[in-house]
């Protein structure tokens, strides 16, 4: 087994808040990505999934402070900032953003935006670079002539395909996909997912999918990390997470996901995630948790092994099989 491409340890992110009330958006997240991995970060909006990924890629900007450790091929990149991260961007770690219309520059052609991230030896001439870009577009199921088109001339699904082609241009080893199918209709959603699946197989890419949709996660990923309030609350193989969730949040999240043909009521999780600009006492999920004990409001449960390759952060895990 090869070593991990990416190791993230105890990642914390604070955002400057008004009046010095800093928001602790990511609170100690750790994960590994090995070559060919299919990992998902799951959770509802505002639980820190996207922030985690942006922090790993060093894209959060000056308003955020990040601590912990991010290693690419064993090389620490976090304290070095932009300069340390830059060599790994796109070449090793690339990303497909949510909302493909805004992720592409509206005044430049799709081809030129793909061509500018091709490895240097591949774009000896403009013509060669554009041909390469065309080949990448064909790879994601688009006609090569789309290189000359502008983003607004493409449909939503095509734009997302173009973004994926662009993400592949640097021949990355890890592809982050941040809600790659939001704002797309179900048919296109399935196509994009199938495309990511195929590309990951063909190119030996590791995929890190960020999603709130457990259906998608189950289709594409074999391992998932469920996040809540900036923390991982449960992680393990996706199959096990669905069939035997060890954290009440995972269970409720699954019950809130509609499944075609399943004879069960669709439930929603009452309330919302806690505010992160004040220190949390006890378990972050307790206000929405159906079964709490006294100790839930006293100490925050740690992420502990509950089964082979499974970890959960719940005081009652032992009792909720």
């Amino acid at each position, binding site marked *: 087994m090869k070593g991990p491409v990416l190791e993230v340890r105890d990642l914390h992110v604070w955002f400057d808040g008004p009046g010095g009330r800093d928001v602790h958006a990511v609170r100690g997240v750790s994960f590994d990505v090995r070559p060919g991995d299919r990992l998902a970060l799951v959770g509802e909006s505002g639980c820190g999934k996207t922030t985690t990924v942006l922090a790993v*890629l060093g*894209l959060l900007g*000056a308003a955020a402070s990040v601590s912990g450790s991010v290693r690419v091929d064993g090389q620490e990149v976090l304290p070095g900032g932009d300069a340390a991260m*830059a*060599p*790994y*961007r*796109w*070449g090793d770690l*690339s*990303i497909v*953003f949510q*909302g493909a219309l*805004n*992720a*592409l*520059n*509206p*005044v*430049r052609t799709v081809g030129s935006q793909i061509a*500018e*991230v091709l490895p240097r030896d591949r774009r000896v001439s403009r013509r060669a670079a554009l041909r390469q870009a065309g080949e990448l577009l064909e790879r994601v199921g688009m006609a090569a002539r789309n290189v000359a088109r*502008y983003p*607004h001339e493409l449909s939503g699904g095509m734009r997302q395909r173009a973004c994926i082609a*662009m993400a592949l241009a*640097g021949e990355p080893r890890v592809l982050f996909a941040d809600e790659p199918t939001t704002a797309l209709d179900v048919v296109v959603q399935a196509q994009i997912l199938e495309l990511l699946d195929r590309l990951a197989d063909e190119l030996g890419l590791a995929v890190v999918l960020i999603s709130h949709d457990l259906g998608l996660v189950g289709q594409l990923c074999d391992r998932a990390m469920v996040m809540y309030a900036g923390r991982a609350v449960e992680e393990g193989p996706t199959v096990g997470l669905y069939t035997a969730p060890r954290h009440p949040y995972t269970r409720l999240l699954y019950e809130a996901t509609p499944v075609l043909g399943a004879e069960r009521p669709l439930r929603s999780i009452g309330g919302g995630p806690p505010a992160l600009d004040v220190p949390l006492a006890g378990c972050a999920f307790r206000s929405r948790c159906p079964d709490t004990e006294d100790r839930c409001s006293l100490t925050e449960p740690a992420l502990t092994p509950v089964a082979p390759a499974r970890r959960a952060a719940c005081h009652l895990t032992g009792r909720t099989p």
Partner: protein
Amino acid sequence: MALITIFCAVSLNFLLFRVVPGDAVSNLARVPNSTVAQQQALRHEFGLDRSIGAQYVAYLRELAHGNLGRSFANGQPVSKNLGEALGNTLPMVLLGTVVAIVAGIATGVLGAVRRGTRTDRALTVSSLAVYALPAQWVGLLLLFLLGGVFPSGGRVDEFLIEPSAWQHAVDVLWHMTLPSLVVGLTLFGQYALLTRTATLETLSEDYVLTARAKGLSTPRIVRRHVLRNAMLPISTMIALTLGSVVGGVVLIETVFSWPGIGRAVYSAVTSRDYPMLQGAFLVLTVVVVVCNYVSDLVCLRLDPRITA
């Protein structure tokens, strides 16, 4: 569209001079001992006894032939007077504008990229200060500071005898420096502030985040993903200000005795030179409309989303 605008402006321009109290003759005829009969004869000669409609048609016909009438003040054709004045104003204003564009955009982008730093604050404050200063005051200040280095007024050195074309050009450029600098300074502040705002707005776009994720360096991101997008509002603004500056150089041209269109308008007003004034208004209207048209063309080039 631009042609329709110009046509409307021409018509309004015509009407404006018909509704002012008194006509050209009542002014000319303020000569002692002029009789009513003489005034009528003059009116007839100028065609002022005909109906408004007929006058309008005649005006349009002559305009179509490029005839703007003759100046009351010096008897020269208005088109010749205005041509000369515009020929003096345009290079001076353009030079100033180019200086302002280059300096303003550089300043604005630098401020936006270094947002919140001391550099940004210093640039923003100085742009605001320059923006707030009245042009004629800046002119006087520059005269006071640099009057010894650069010529303080006029367009050419009257004492140069039979200069070569090259000498003449250098001489004109030398005289142009101060007034152009004033034009440049007054525009610089606006351009710098707008560029900063537009750049900041563009920098917060998702595709700039994409560009950063792609590992592009900051200068490259600015050049390839920010500047062109930010140029859209800036180019519109440049075109708009250019149009109004050509019409608004009266004060600067007065301070530097620059024989341009601003001074032509000013002296036409003081001497009630109606044909000159009417012609000048027309020319200024055309300049503004042309500038807007050019800005539309530029936006069309810059932004593929806009279609003609």
